[in-house]
């Protein structure tokens, strides 16, 4: 979930009519198996914590971690999610914000 949040998932709405243009998984893009890198699992053996939930909390730092990695690779920050090709090119100064040349 955090992965899609960082790189893919975005609701696209026509600004004039308010119609959602990507009400399907073709253009509302979700990460599939081929998109996900190998994941290292670290199990924390902390019986003193008791049983605790895991779900939403892990989605929050994932996008931040990926955004940091992108910033580290590019030398500039991409200021909004998802980090898409047009935004990366805009951050690098190759195109204007919004993608217009």
């Amino acid at each position, binding site marked *: 979930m955090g992965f899609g949040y960082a790189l893919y998932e975005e609701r696209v709405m026509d*600004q004039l009519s308010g119609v959602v243009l990507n009400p399907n998984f*073709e253009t509302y893009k979700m990460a599939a198996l081929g998109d996900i890198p190998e994941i290292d699992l670290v199990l924390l053996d902390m019986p003193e914590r008791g049983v605790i939930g895991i779900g939403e909390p892990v989605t929050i730092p994932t996008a931040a971690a990926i955004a940091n990695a992108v910033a580290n690779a590019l030398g500039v920050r991409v200021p909004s999610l998802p980090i898409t090709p047009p935004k990366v*090119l805009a951050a690098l100064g*190759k195109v204007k914000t*919004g993608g217009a*040349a």
Partner: protein
Amino acid sequence: MTPFQYATASSPASALELVSGNGRYLAGGIDLLGEMKEYIAEPKMLVNIKALPGLDKIESGEKSWTIGANVTISELEDHAELKTVFPGLQQAAAEVGSRQIRNVATVGGNLAQHSRCWYYRHRDILCLKKGGDTCYARHGENKYHSLFTGNTCISPVVSNLSIALAALDAVVIVQRKGEDKPARMSIAQLYAKAWDNPTAHHSLEPGDLILKVEVPIQQGRSAYIQVSEKSVFDWALVSCAVAGKMDGAKISQARIVLGAVANVPYEVPEANKVLEGKVLDEALANQAADVLLERAHAHSENGYKIPIARTLVRRALMQLKA
């Protein structure tokens, strides 16, 4: 989906007969069934063409390879010999949809597929392509749209195979109504109408049936690459196919074709001429890309496609050297 009749054609002639009067051909159904579920296509008759004899084969001849319209994209992708003869075509096939889609989708269907523009595909929107009077993408959400068009519609051609086949100078064999012999169309001819006419996805008329594709055997090399948002199972933001003959470091008979940037596979003869007989290096590839992209017209959100296209042209041409 609205009700429809279903029939299986046993010959091209019976297919043409059955389809007349608001019918559509059904092969893989990948594109058609999506349109039907969204009420964008409401055919009265579906004509199954999967049983047509001889259209599911890949055959090599002296001068060309023949690929039947019912060959699946997976068969194209997995064909061992084709990989070495036309690597560009194999790479284009491997980037289509997901494996499940490629197992079902056919060559004919890939070439004849309709626009993926999200205004066109939305059941509640009557856009220019569907016979309305406005291209909403022009002043709306257009990050997936065209940099080049000959009309007002800016939805791009999204067939991967058309891009590779254009670079390979392929000929599409089409059976048309009232003609004894099937017509032979270049890829440029197959899409020319979409350049001029906003409601056209290609030049085929209702009832026209793609039978085969002939790919001439060249002494040269070919390559296809695309950039998508996702790593797999995604449409190209921009794709590029190249073909050419390498004589040492020099390139000749080069073809560069861009996909997902125009309503046709986009080619500029002057860009190909830049390369003719010259030593292929990155600087030359950039020169060709500049000529190819000279007339690009970016809209509010698709200008990023220009630097991507430029990079893809360079990378694809460099693959010819290897």
